[in-house]
């Protein structure tokens, strides 16, 4: 009986000591990470397009932090989903088609002679990338446009087009070489070609 008591009290004492050490360490050496919302927000593409059903990227980031799905961001596409999955340590999901599809980078372009100067698109633009005043022609600051589409619907005369972003000499880069082995692994009966 005495031996059992000794054993129990020794273990209990050890548990206390270790618990105290661990507790102290968890307070003293607490890792200072970004709040999770900030980290999620940093991954989202910041188009502020609202295709996810939230009014902007930050609200969606908050929603994800509160348990919403990570596959509602078409502009970010697969790479964003992958990055979110890595960050949150969850399974990457395929993009949810209800919220739209992944499209090439677009930029809004106002057909300026058709613009009536109603300022509706200016109010709709989430990043203030449209310049103009009432009864004056509006124009898009292409560098600031995130391609979110939100200005298309409000336009009463449908004078806004989404055009793909052109690759210039400065942005052009070599594409990834065709990988024979992988390509043929995936596509049967295709001989390796030069």
């Amino acid at each position, binding site marked *: 009986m005495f031996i059992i008591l000794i054993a129990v009290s020794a273990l209990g004492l050890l548990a206390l000591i270790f618990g105290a050490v661990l507790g102290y360490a968890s307070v003293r050496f607490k890792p200072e990470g970004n709040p999770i919302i900030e980290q999620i927000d940093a991954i989202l593409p910041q188009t502020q397009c609202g295709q996810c059903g939230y009014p902007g990227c930050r609200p969606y980031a908050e929603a994800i932090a509160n348990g919403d799905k990570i596959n509602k961001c078409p502009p970010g596409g697969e790479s964003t989903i992958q990055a979110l999955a890595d960050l949150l340590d969850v399974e990457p999901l395929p993009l949810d088609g209800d919220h739209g599809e992944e499209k090439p980078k677009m930029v809004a372009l106002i057909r300026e002679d058709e613009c009536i100067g109603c300022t509706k698109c200016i109010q709709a633009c989430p990043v203030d990338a449209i310049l103009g005043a009432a009864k004056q022609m509006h124009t898009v600051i292409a560098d600031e446009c995130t391609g979110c589409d939100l200005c298309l619907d409000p336009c009463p005369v449908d004078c806004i087009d989404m055009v793909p972003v052109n690759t210039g000499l400065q942005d052009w880069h*070599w594409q990834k070489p065709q990988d*024979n*082995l992988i390509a*043929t*692994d995936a596509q*049967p009966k*295709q*001989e*390796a070609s030069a």
Partner: protein
Amino acid sequence: MNLITLSSPHHTQSTGVNKVMLQVLMALVPGIVALCLFFSPIYLFNLLIGCSTALAVEALILRLRRCPVAFHLRDLSALVTAVLLVISMPPLIPWWITVLAVSCALLLGKHLYGGLGFNPFNPAMVAFALMIVSFPVPMTTLWLAPNSGLDFASALQIVLGQTLLPDGISSATPLDYYKTQVGRLTATEIYQSELFFGIWPAGWIWVSLAYLVGGLFLLYKKVFSWHAPLGLLVGLAVLALIFGLDPDSNTPLHLHLLAGSAIVGAFFIVTDPVSGATSRLGKFIFGFGVGCLAYVIRTWGSYPDAIAFAVLLMNFAAPFIDHYSKPRTYGHSTRHQGYK
């Protein structure tokens, strides 16, 4: 004018993987000739079986994997695997073990990992280890004594399983013999055996020297650098010198180097680029590790020759060696850091 735009460089040495492999095969010829001359020409038959199995199995797997068969067969890597495997196995090994071994090498050692370039282990050694574990008796007892006088026809019958093995034909390898006898007999007594020619392992010494010639040819052709072979020989030699100074109690250095598969291992096995380390320093460490492990297993383990196990063990360590033997990049003050 329609111009072709391909990224630079527009100039290549264009050696081609198959040229590398062809050079390796050519370099193995002297060793094979020596094996045929001093042991038995039955090696040629075994090679025939091994190579045809290799081509057939490789083609079949490539087809199943939906890869371009002709394109990948042309790289000759399957043949190299088969030849290395056959020459490391005993000459009188039943034909079906050869077939099984080559198939295992290609299937388990290579294609299950994604084919050429992706196998973490040396395919030939994977199969060899598998065979020696699965069929320990034939794999260790079907060796021939040098100049045994066994003609090709009878050897063929043994290999094909049509006759039983006649008594007194098979023999242990010199390393095996030395290891088993060294406690009971003195070195001088051991050297009395027909397996030895003076203090040299009869027959085996010529085979080793023939491999050495082939290996030096590859070194000259710059198919590989000297680091891995030297590493193996140094590793083996250092331990053999430390522990084997007294030939009456341990196998001496020259037998370690010349009586077993040390030379073929140094020039043809640890130089396999796919499963070895990459940088020059890494290659040396890799070879050194193989040499040390081979000595340890030969001396204190239960296998008389141990290059296969040593290589497989070091294959495990190759990524680790690679990680810690990265060179210092130009303009950086420290070596590469971190994982990725």
